[in-house]
């Protein structure tokens, strides 16, 4: 239970960063942190008490112990790939924004309003 609360605390740290920070690069880092928190929570959902890793090895018999659920690990792998792409897109947009506005401060980039 305590692990899920810590995971939620990490999510709150990321959301705090998205709400409060004014620099474009810090916004990108904060969105990365929320992504890490979500992936961690997905992996934790697959855990079973006293289970071992879900890999069959040559020479060892199929053991009687229960294996950890491997499906959330595949979900997390896909999710990491997607967030890598989104971060790359955000960084490219931040570079172009800096080139047009000469600043990384979001309170000064205000061409669209109303």
């Amino acid at each position, binding site marked *: 239970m305590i692990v899920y609360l810590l995971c939620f605390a990490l999510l709150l740290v990321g959301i705090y960063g998205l709400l409060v920070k004014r620099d474009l690069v810090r916004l990108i880092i904060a969105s990365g942190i*929320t992504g890490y928190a979500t992936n961690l929570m997905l992996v934790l959902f697959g855990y079973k008490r006293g289970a071992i890793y879900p890999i069959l090895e040559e020479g060892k018999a199929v053991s009687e112990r229960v294996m950890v659920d491997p*499906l959330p690990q595949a979900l997390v792998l896909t999710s990491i790939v997607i967030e890598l792409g989104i971060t790359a897109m955000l960084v490219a947009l931040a570079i172009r924004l800096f080139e047009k506005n000469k600043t990384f401060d979001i309170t000064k980039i205000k061409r669209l309003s109303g």
Partner: protein
Amino acid sequence: MILPFFIIIPLLTAFIITLIAGERDNWAVILSILAVVSLVILSVYCFVSLNGRTLVYEMGRWQAPLGIILAVDALSAFMLVIVSIIALTAIMFSVQYIRNLSPSWKYYALFMLLTGGMNGVIVTGDLFNLFVFVEITLFAAYGLVAYGNKAEEFEASFKYAIMGSISSTLVLVGIGIIYSATSTLTMALIAERLPQNPTVMYWSGGLFVAAFGLKAAIMPFHAWLPDAHSSAPAPISAMLSGVLIKALGVYVLIRLFFNVFGEMPVFSEVFLVLGTVSMVIGVFLALGQWDVKRLLAYHSISQIGYIIIGVGLGTTLGLLGAVFHLLNHAIFKALLFLNAGSLEMALGTRDLRQMGKVSKALPVTSFTSMVASLSISGIPPFNGFFSKLIIFIAAIQIGRPVVAFLAGLGSLLTLASFMKVQRYGFHGEKTVTADQAKVGWGMRAAMIVLAILCLATSALIIPGIREVTLDPVVEVIMNKTGYITRVLGR
């Protein structure tokens, strides 16, 4: 079977365009038009020959709990037809528009990714596969909104990207909760095994309303839409506002909340409240805008409010109105954005105060924009009137006269707002020079096709035609156990 080809054709075209296109974009244009035309033919064939069945396809021949399945029923086939028709008209429009803006093959590759992703969202039957295709589509959308290298486009795309990534995080948390409760990801199996425990349903349902409501631009989550839809190039605005917020937002909400979760009165109330707020505040905010595309973007928020009210009413008549309004809004909003694009191309500005008398110089644009404005305001015999009337009657029938009154008020204010657009944009007092040569025949053909469809789809209300086209869609939505049995084959 033909189901995986809805995803294979656009994605393969995107990769081949990236490989073989050189400096000029001829090959890109030809390949993308071929791909979209074949998608139109496939989707119309699928919709016409469906006859109430549900087509199920297993990817890689792995059975349902172990593998990913694609499931197409009447609602999916309906959405596929809408997506491919709007994509065809947007591609026809963009050939000359993009050549004037900044010609490149990258636009066509991203457009194919967008279409392929939306098709993937519509045909899939697996919850995590839905999330992956939503991300593919949004990725292409962020790139296309920023196409054109103007300063405000990057700002709009950055806002859209940050808010989209927040909503993706919320979707993942919701998927985690549902997986830990049912230990499966196939939507039909989730519908079967979901415990009647209200805690799980409220948590995941609330997260999904927030996340997919952000993608559908319902009112508290709408803040990215005016910037993104007004800064994007015109055919991309037509695609985004016409099909993306519906395929990614409204369709997923209908599929999750009617087929997977079943009827829940709490969420119907939530949808009614959010839809009413979107509808009223959207049209009030649109009244004060002078930028043509920003005005149209606020009207998108308002019309999506109508559709969400229809979804929230939950009765057969309400869902019929919602589905019909989904089709109509795709057609006339795409037409309105294409008109705004051709105005911008000919006059060089988007500000209504600087436009003047162009009805002689751009006859096709003026005529089709009059058709679209009458449609969106709900004037008979155009299609907007019938769908709004159905939602109005459904609201009164279920005993909510306040919602019906606000729907009528919203319709009146929409009429006022579009009279302003017509007066300032097309019949103003100033005489301005309109470069008519820039509005080529491809752009004009796309607008005329959509205007004809505006009038033709009002024929869908005639009872004989409605039983074939719209009634199977509504029946599929309302029938949760039917969805489970038809997908799983029991």
